[in-house]
């Protein structure tokens, strides 16, 4: 099941987990953060892309191995380099079966990875 928490964040949970949280009352977190709705659009978390990516019909970009490395380090990628024209201002990226989160498309034609800093691969 999906439910909306604070700050427009949508989480996925099992019914048993949700009901147990209700019973306990004060809890720190329930289920998995999947996506966030903002006034600019909807962004999938890394886990949201992995959970829902195969069901998306559009705005999914296939990266090369080299592009995936740059993406995972937090580097914006050029749409022209990707050869991709998105419908809207967000895309989800994948490398074969591995989904790696979503990105925000800026006016200058770049896709900015929405990956938390602590989950970016440090540049060697």
């Amino acid at each position, binding site marked *: 099941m999906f439910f909306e928490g604070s700050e427009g964040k949508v989480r996925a949970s099992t019914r048993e*987990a949700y009901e147990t949280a209700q019973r*306990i009352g004060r809890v*720190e*977190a329930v289920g998995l953060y999947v996506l966030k709705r903002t006034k600019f659009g909807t962004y999938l978390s890394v886990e949201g892309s*992995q959970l829902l990516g195969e069901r998306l019909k559009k705005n999914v970009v296939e990266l090369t191995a080299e592009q995936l490395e740059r993406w995972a380090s937090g580097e914006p990628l050029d749409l022209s380099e990707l050869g991709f024209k998105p419908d809207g201002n967000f895309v989800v990226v994948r490398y074969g079966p591995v989904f790696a989160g979503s990105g925000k498309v800026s006016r200058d034609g770049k896709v900015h990875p929405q990956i938390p800093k602590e989950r970016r*691969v440090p540049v060697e």
Partner: protein
Amino acid sequence: MSRPPLSEDLLRLLRELPDMDEELYIESMTRPLPETFRVNTLKLPEETIIGFLEERGWKVEKLPWARHGYRALRCEREDPGATLPHLLGLIYIQGPMSMVPVEALDPRPGEKVLDLCAAPGSKSTQIAQLMENKGVLVANDASSERIKPLISNLQRWGAMNCVVTLKDGRYFGKRMRETFDRVLCDVPCSSLGIVMKDWAAARNYSSGITERVRALQLSLLLSAYDASVPGGTIVYSTCTIHPLENEWVVTELLRRRDDARVLRFEPEGVRTRRPLEEWKGMRFDPEVTKCFKCYPYDNAAEGFFVALIRKGDGS
């Protein structure tokens, strides 16, 4: 490498343990742990992830005692925790013996499971994986500082069936009695089985630490036991070598809960040793000899103690 520093109390303890080889223990402190990890089958099939790792230059070997557990013989970077597979949540870096308690717990999809002292979350993610994200896992910790890494590790792992709570572990035995099918009670301890990760544990150890912590360990185990349904499974585990935090705690549980039974648990491919029946004039319950115990030098890994306990079903 220089000889690691050991406190006087630790040296005394090593000499008082009848089955301890002091030199081998000290030598084990200077050896880094093997790089081991679990593959996340909540996200992709195991063979797909292994293929992804091999494409990136990893060479891996299966661990016989842990489902989805591997040893990295070669890794793309010196620090596996800074690699893309780790940061995407496709693998979880975890010590080899640290995987044993959840294998003993053997959680199943659809059950209600409690991890009483869950932070930073390596065992909780392992539980969620074996539950196939079905049912409910309550991952609790008493430390507000440690809750944040617990939540982010569960998120990275893609654990959907989790409720994270910040409570004194003794809450569950009082307020959620007979609720959980399985309870993991991996308690705070003197950490004398993982001194290769942190020499400070050996340098700063005093017998006062064990005296303080064993009362807490017992109260947490009693809480875990009371939170379990009749016929439920409880696993008590520590990463220490001290009999007062291991054999004594389990003996006290058996004395205070007369329907508790210890089950034998022998993980495949791991060298184990027989727990003590007596120590310094204390006699432990003979049932404790069924527990799993190993010292750091037994498997060139962490030292661990694991008790698999079944609660009576009232029949």
